[in-house]
């Protein structure tokens, strides 16, 4: 008879096989290796670098206040990482998959292996990395150099523990979602949590509540000689989280994915062909088909709603300054593009070959697909801007001009980048599961890094010029950005129009 230890040992071995299989399918090994080294260097840099700043000798009271605030909120930042781990696992239907559902179907892969795979893939998420780097950097900033090693070990132990706990809660939520009325239950509970948090914040009770959490004790203990106690406790918690998480994983994966099945067997009554007032009817019909492909996907619909509402609510509730709001459209547009835009042709899946036999110009196909990607990005980033507007009221003219210019620039920027990637490096993927991604995980991590870097830097440029007195400057500054992105977009379009290039994309996406 097999013992439970055999189950875990087998699962660990199988996870190793799956990781090795995925690693062998990486196309650009050198770029992936460079990416990994960059991430490790950045991690080391954030963990050590800030401790070299001697803030107490600066003499700046504003800086002192900022450091005190960071120190006081370190426990809250720890708690924030847990919240992120939970929402990431919930948003991806329990967690990312090492192999897609159709690929894994023929192999005897246990739920424990799926669980371990999801845990391994959790760091391939920009929000996870950025939050970890923030924790390391803030800890380095507020901890005396002689205590830094212990404090950072506690941080890393917390990152492991929070990821394990988040994964367990994510699987539980996915299990509930797969029960009768489970989708409604998860939506209602999530809504209630958001409303309660918003209410607590508006009542001024959220800060004290967060500070009373055990994470505050953890953050304080990390900076003392008792750090080994905290580290050992957290490592034990991480092990418990990983082991316990296998239960809800097995439960969730043993249930039918109701929402996906409902969508896959969804009935959509016939509608008349669109008769647009302007533009060609062919384009209108293609647009309808492409929009249907987006909104009839569980993962994309869920992602667009979260991206649209989440950052907007933060802007609404927390009352972010316009200088911070300026960064959000780029990040939310990037998030929307990461749902499918980075591999835009994957919307058609294996139907790409049939689409290509239709007597419609390749230019129309490209333009419509780019428009649908742009629509999704404009929608989610637009919600953020509108909610910030509701909270902050109309900004001064120069700030308003900067926000609008920045928004337009990042939209065109991200669109040009992702349409170029879609032509240059297409992938065959099945997006029927919300656990699926439009590109392999390593590529997704690289895409997320590049998009957020570009849009954040752009946002910073416009934030800087919004402090000046000239309302004409932001639109003027937008022109070179827009010109460069347009050149890039036109180049991608030209590449698509070349029959041999298009055939390569079609055959790759359709995997024939």
């Amino acid at each position, binding site marked *: 008879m097999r013992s439970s230890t055999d189950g875990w040992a087998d699962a660990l071995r199988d996870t190793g096989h799956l990781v090795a299989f995925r690693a062998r399918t990486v196309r650009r090994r050198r770029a992936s290796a460079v990416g990994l080294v960059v991430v490790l260097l950045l991690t080391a840099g954030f963990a050590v670098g800030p401790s070299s700043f001697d803030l107490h000798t600066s003499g700046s009271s504003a800086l002192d206040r900022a450091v005190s605030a960071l120190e006081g909120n370190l426990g809250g930042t720890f708690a924030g990482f847990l919240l992120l781990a939970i929402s990431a696992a919930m948003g991806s239907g329990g967690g990312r998959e090492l192999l897609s559902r159709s690929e894994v179907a023929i192999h005897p892969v246990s739920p424990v292996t799926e669980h371990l795979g999801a845990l391994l893939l959790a760091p391939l998420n920009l929000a996870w990395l950025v939050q970890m780097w923030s924790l390391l950097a803030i800890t380095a900033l507020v901890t005396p150099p002689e205590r830094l090693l212990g404090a950072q070990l506690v941080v890393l132990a917390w990152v492991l523990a929070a990821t394990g706990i988040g994964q367990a809660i994510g699987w539980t939520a996915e299990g509930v979602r797969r029960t009768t009325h489970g989708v409604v239950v998860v939506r209602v509970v999530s809504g209630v949590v958001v409303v309660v948090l918003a209410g607590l914040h508006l009542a001024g009770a959220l800060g004290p509540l967060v500070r009373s959490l055990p994470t505050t004790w953890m953050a304080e203990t990390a900076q003392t000689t008792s750090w080994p106690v905290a580290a050992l406790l957290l490592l034990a918690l991480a092990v418990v989280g990983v082991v316990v998480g296998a239960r809800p994983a097995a439960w969730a994966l043993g249930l039918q994915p109701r929402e996906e*099945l409902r*969508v*896959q*067997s*969804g*009935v*959509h*009554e*016939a509608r008349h*062909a669109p008769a647009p007032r302007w533009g060609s*009817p*062919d384009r209108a*019909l*293609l647009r309808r*088909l492409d929009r*249907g*492909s987006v909104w*009839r*996907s569980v993962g994309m619909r869920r992602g667009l709603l979260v991206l649209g509402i989440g950052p907007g609510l933060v802007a609404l509730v927390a009352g972010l300054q316009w200088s911070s709001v300026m960064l959000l459209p780029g990040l939310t547009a990037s998030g929307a593009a990461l749902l499918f835009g980075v591999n835009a042709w994957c*919307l*058609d*899946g*294996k*139907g790409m*070959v*049939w*689409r*290509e*036999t*239709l*007597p*419609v*110009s390749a230019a129309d196909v490209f333009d419509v697909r780019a428009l649908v990607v742009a629509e999704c990005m404009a929608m989610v980033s637009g919600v953020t801007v509108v909610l910030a507007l509701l909270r902050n009221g109309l900004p001064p003219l120069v700030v308003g001009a900067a926000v609008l210019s920045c928004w337009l620039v990042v939209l065109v920027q991200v669109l040009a980048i992702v349409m170029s990637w879609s032509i240059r490096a297409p992938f065959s993927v*099945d997006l*029927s599961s919300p656990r699926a991604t439009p590109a392999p995980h390593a590529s997704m991590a690289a895409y997320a890094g590049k998009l957020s870097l570009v849009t954040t830097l752009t946002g910073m440029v416009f934030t800087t010029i919004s402090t000046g007195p000239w309302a004409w400057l932001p639109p003027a500054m937008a022109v070179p950005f827009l010109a460069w992105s347009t050149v890039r977009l036109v180049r991608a379009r030209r590449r698509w129009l070349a*029959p*041999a290039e298009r*055939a*390569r994309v*079609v*055959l790759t996406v*359709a*995997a*024939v």
Partner: protein
Amino acid sequence: MSQPPPPAVLVRDLHVRFGDVEAVSGVDLSADSGQATALLGRNGAGKSTTMKVLAGVVPPTAGEVTVGGHDAASDALGVKRVVGYCPDVGGLVPRATPWEHLQLSARLRRMDDWEERGRDMLERFELGDVAHRVVGGFSHGMSRRLSVVLAALHEPSVLLLDEPFDGVDPLGVEATLEVVADARARGACVLLSTHLRDLALEACSTAVVLRGGNRVAAMQAGELTGEAYRALLD
């Protein structure tokens, strides 16, 4: 004496290369209107790639390809207007319904009264009940049957069917054979690629055998006995 009409499909020395791989190396092929031609061969013989070139999906690397009077290299859009193509794999947009597929195909080909024919064809292929259900949940056989419907909806002058019998039940096979017979009767050129010799012989009057990206034989279908076919494959 009048000249015989030019062949509906004419392929001369077709080469298709994907990077270092030459998928088709020197295929010659000719198929007339009102005739059904079987394209036979083992896996990797170049049948599906040849079909994709004829459908205007893949441009020829070299050689001459004319479909319904249109040059596949320079006028792919013209080719797509005269062709109806059932691809060998998938061929359906996963989150669209069969009716939406038919609507798009018909509107882009400027068909005004297509609904009745579309409904009739879906019924013939026993897909009437699922006309408004997204195809992502379809079985392989249902997807194949819908692909044949999509290829034949607009009564193309060149009908390309790539493995239309793959995973299809006997009723679906019968319906597909009827589509081929109808197309021949109205004067269309049919090219049918399959591994199933018996069905190919039932549907087609001539047969072309490909091996390793080359044409190795062209004959009347009746002449292609089991032994002869086997000998051509080895």
